[in-house]
């Protein structure tokens, strides 16, 4: 009997080879698939465990502080503390801080937009009388905005050292007799309050300079004028510069100083700037109209010299280059005026958030601005004075790029236009771009400005967490629940990551801003776990269906031989044994080959166990399928429609099932895989995770593809082999090769297309109930066309089955 079985295997070389190859694939790919899905799961879990936790775990805000846009898009914008409303008192924060389960509770309060002391820019004293005209500009990276009206100064060449002769209209400033000073425009910067220790624990940044004492000498005059005023100490962020440019025009003009002295009613010894202001204004009006002998224009970048609360005075030399100034003027008159800004008013339209200009200007304002405080020039006693006492330098490391902990005050993430141009916050309070805090003050100082509940948010880091895993999540959730019960607005930011939000900004166009998506780590984990589960279920189901289907049509194709053997007196048991022995042989050969290959590629021991498990299940299935008796009534009448389809249904149906499940497997797998990758790549943590596991998942996908193709090829080969005599008959009765091929193609395409369509519809139903995106569903559907192309290819190469090559015998000698 063994010889009979072996002979049948050998006589069907191509069929046997395909079956062995497919079985070899199954024995090898399922263990590899399992191993890879395990590795994928581990890679995802590890990425999230290592990278999923940001600087802090829970963001606590006063009740009802969640904005409409946060509720709508489920994300937190970077400047979440922007409206300076406060709502949490220092006592409440201290109570939270005392909870032993909390490692750090770092409060933050947005105070508003403040201005530092203005410093001077010294103009050059040239050999010729010169009319200087200048204008200051700032930029948001895309457009330039004028910060002041054009101003002018006329310099007279008769100047002497220490007695510089010039004319200029003054604005709240004093005129220097030695230098040609012009004052930089007022710029505004976000000031935030922190608790030094907590902030240091949270960020590992040194804020100790906030404890420095201020230089009382510089404030003496003011204190003497207005009496005792609380002084707010500010530490300035070291790495922030104010984008500022000076456009300077120098016109050489012919002037006789005597003429102007007369016009200004001055004697020959008088200093020109000692004249009456109205007269100076009138004379400057005349001088501005004066013909120029020569003109030069200069654009001078002062950005690197200008810090939010501590500008550096500079001097423009005769070559119009910038040097540090030794003599300079500074002006703190406006430092007691500040602005608070409401949060941006987003409007959602077609999944894009719109931001409208609230007030046109240079630059325009996108937020409602409220002016607070009094200028020192108004002569009213100010509520406070601010003085810069030191600096701080926040660090930006890799972790903070993967996981997001919206710090609110350190915003360093870039906002870009659709073309990739980086936008920067402007120097006015109403910018739509989140401004990082240019300066920090203490909470006690914040109370002076904001009252008893100055804190806008508390960033909580839960104690006893080293990795972001399930246990960590439970701990964080417990604390979050407690804080929620205490009446705070609570967001778990652990496991959050950056996600780009597209904003349509009036006057600028579409920009992309990195917001914080909450709970992305859990979502990532769920998505990938879902994908892995789906992959495994589909793959195993496919293999099972494929194997059962091929056993069924093998059994059906053996029917005639079985009948013959019954006629010649073989008992049924012996016939069954003969049939399944052949399958045993094929299985065993494939198993041995795959085990040998596993040894070569050094798979883990578990792979051998999985393969052996598959072998046992396969043996059982063979026994069951070949033993089941088929009881079907013999049909007398022919089928009216698609007779061949119905007649060969025992072979075609299993093939259709394989096609159906292959299509489903490929479409669902590709669409889910693509959608999961897309979803993961929306956040930086997701991108990192995808980078680590893309290869594994792709391998599983390719394996599924190869197995589908192998399975299908084997089914179609068997079907065509079974019908070989039919195709010969078509040839004998005078059908040309082309006609036979067309006939077969038409018939095959009817049932393959039906199965593929059914597979497509089913997979679409499954996918529409998941979070797969339409784009990826379309890609999945298009990929399944590979199966159809393969069917056509098989039909074409099956010509060898259909047509007898010239010169060979086709019927009996």
């Amino acid at each position: 009997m063994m010889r009979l079985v072996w002979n049948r295997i050998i006589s069907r070389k191509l069929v046997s080879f395909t079956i062995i190859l497919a079985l070899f694939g199954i024995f090898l790919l399922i263990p590899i698939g399992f191993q890879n899905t395990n590795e994928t799961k581990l890679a995802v879990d590890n990425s999230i465990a290592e990278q999923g936790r940001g600087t802090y775990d829970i963001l606590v805000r006063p009740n009802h502080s969640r904005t409409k846009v946060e509720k709508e898009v489920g994300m937190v914008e970077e400047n979440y503390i922007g409206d300076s409303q406060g709502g949490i008192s220092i006592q409440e924060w201290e109570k939270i801080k005392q909870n032993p389960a909390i490692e750090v509770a770092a409060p933050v309060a947005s105070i508003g937009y403040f201005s530092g002391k203005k410093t001077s820019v010294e103009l050059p004293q040239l050999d010729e009388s010169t009319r200087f005209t200048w204008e200051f500009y700032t930029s948001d990276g895309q457009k330039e905005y004028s910060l002041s009206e054009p101003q002018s100064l006329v310099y007279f060449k008769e100047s002497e050292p220490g007695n510089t002769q010039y004319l200029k209209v003054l604005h709240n400033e004093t005129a220097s007799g030695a230098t040609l000073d012009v004052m930089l425009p007022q710029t505004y910067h976000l000031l935030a309050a922190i608790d030094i220790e907590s902030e240091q624990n949270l960020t590992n940044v040194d804020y100790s300079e906030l404890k420095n004492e201020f230089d009382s000498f510089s404030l003496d005059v003011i204190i003497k004028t207005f009496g005792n005023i609380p002084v707010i100490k500010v530490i300035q962020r070291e790495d922030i510069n104010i984008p500022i440019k000076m456009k300077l025009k120098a016109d050489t003009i012919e002037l006789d100083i005597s003429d102007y002295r007369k016009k200004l009613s001055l004697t020959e010894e008088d200093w020109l700037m000692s004249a009456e202001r109205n007269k100076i204004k009138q004379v400057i009006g005349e001088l501005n109209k004066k013909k120029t002998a020569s003109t030069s224009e200069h654009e001078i970048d002062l950005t690197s010299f200008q810090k939010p609360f501590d500008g550096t005075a500079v001097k423009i030399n005769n070559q119009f280059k910038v040097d540090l100034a030794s003599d300079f003027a500074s002006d703190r008159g406006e430092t007691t005026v500040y602005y608070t800004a409401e949060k941006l008013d987003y409007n959602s339209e077609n999944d894009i958030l719109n931001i409208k200009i609230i007030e046109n200007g240079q630059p325009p304002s996108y937020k409602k601005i409220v002016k607070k405080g009094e200028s020192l020039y108004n002569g009213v006693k100010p509520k406070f004075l601010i003085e810069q006492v030191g600096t701080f330098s926040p660090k930006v490391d890799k972790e903070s790029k993967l996981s997001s902990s919206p710090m609110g005050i350190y915003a360093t993430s870039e906002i870009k236009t659709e073309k990739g141009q980086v936008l920067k916050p402007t120097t006015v309070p109403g910018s739509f771009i989140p401004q990082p805090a240019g300066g920090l003050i203490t909470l006690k100082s914040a109370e002076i400005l904001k009252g008893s509940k100055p804190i806008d948010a508390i960033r909580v880091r839960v104690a006893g967490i080293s990795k972001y895993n399930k246990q960590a999540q439970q701990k964080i959730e417990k604390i979050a629940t407690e804080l929620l019960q205490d009446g705070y607005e609570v967001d778990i930011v652990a496991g959050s990551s950056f996600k780009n939000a597209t904003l349509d900004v009036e006057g600028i166009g579409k920009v992309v801003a990195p917001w914080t998506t909450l709970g992305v780590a859990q979502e990532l984990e769920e998505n990938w776990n879902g994908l892995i589960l789906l992959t495994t279920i589909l793959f195993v189901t496919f293999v099972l269906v494929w194997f059962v289907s091929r056993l069924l049509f093998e059994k059906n194709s053996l029917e005639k031989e079985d009948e013959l053997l019954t006629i010649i007196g073989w008992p049924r048991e012996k016939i069954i044994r003969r049939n399944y022995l052949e399958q045993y042989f094929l299985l065993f050969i494939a198993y041995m080959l795959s085990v040998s290959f596993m040894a070569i590629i050094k798979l883990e021991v578990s792979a051998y166990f999985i393969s052996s498990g598959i072998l046992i299940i396969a043996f059982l299935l063979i026994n069951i399928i070949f033993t089941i008796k088929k009881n079907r009534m013999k049909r007398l009448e022919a089928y009216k429609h698609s007779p061949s389809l119905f007649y060969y249904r025992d072979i075609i149906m299993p093939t259709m099932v394989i096609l159906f499940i292959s299509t489903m497997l490929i479409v669902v797998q590709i669409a889910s895989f693509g959608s999961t990758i897309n979803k993961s790549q929306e956040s930086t943590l997701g991108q990192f995770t995808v980078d680590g596991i893309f290869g594994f998942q792709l391998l599983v996908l390719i394996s599924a593809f190869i197995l589908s193709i192998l399975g299908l090829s084997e089914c179609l080969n068997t079907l065509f082999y079974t019908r070989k005599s039919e195709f010969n008959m078509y040839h004998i009765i005078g059908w040309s090769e082309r006609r036979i091929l067309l006939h077969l193609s038409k018939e095959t395409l009817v049932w393959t297309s039906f199965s593929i369509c059914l597979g497509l519809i089913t997979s679409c139903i499954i996918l529409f109930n998941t979070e797969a995106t339409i784009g990826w569903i379309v890609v999945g559907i298009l990929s399944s066309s590979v199966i159809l192309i393969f069917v056509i290819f098989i039909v074409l190469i099956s010509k060898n089955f259909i047509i007898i090559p010239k010169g060979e015998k086709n019927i009996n000698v």
Partner: protein
Amino acid sequence: MIEIRDLSKTYTHLSDKVKILNNISLSIDKGQWYTIIGPSGTGKSTFLNCVAGLLQPDEGEIIYEGVNIYSLKDKVKSEYRRLNIGFIFQDFKLLPHYSVLDNVALPLIYDEPKKSLYTKAKSQLEMVGIKEQMFNRLPEALSGGEKQRIAIARALIANPKVLICDEPTGNLDINNRNIILDLLSEFKNSGKTIIMVTHDEEVANRGDIIYKLSNGILEERMKKNDAFSLESNN
């Protein structure tokens, strides 16, 4: 009508070469019934296949109405077979999934409008004695004699000039054998040509001219009734 010139065919079995047809030349005339006898494995079916344009000979030509059929392209050769030659086999070679009517209509299914083709197929079936209630039956549900009659109806649907029969009565009882032979006689009497291979003496004697194929050579040309006595003498 058909001129067979120097027809040779060799098969290779393992390393041995067996020349199954050796330089056979024969002229097939219109309206004649040719019977070829010979032991099994002597190449009778190979000879028929070569004549029908199904099997390319190693040497020689098959000239049908002045054209060497093996010089034709597949499409034209197939058309020659479809329109000029009908086949009848011992095992009927009916397609098991098609109805009786479909099996008969099959050769011309892509050539003629369905309605006229099926009318023709029905009359062909009636001509060979198949009743209408059998038209939609599957071949499996019929007796051997009925199957062969259907095979004859299929062979005649295109009104061929030549009928090639490979042991057409080999699987039939005497009664059915006679029915089939009578049908073939009718066909021959309508001026058509029959080339038949058989082992059966009585069947062979129905032919006008009998050949014996032996060692690759068509040995003798005899009148009917003499062939088997000659064979037994040998």
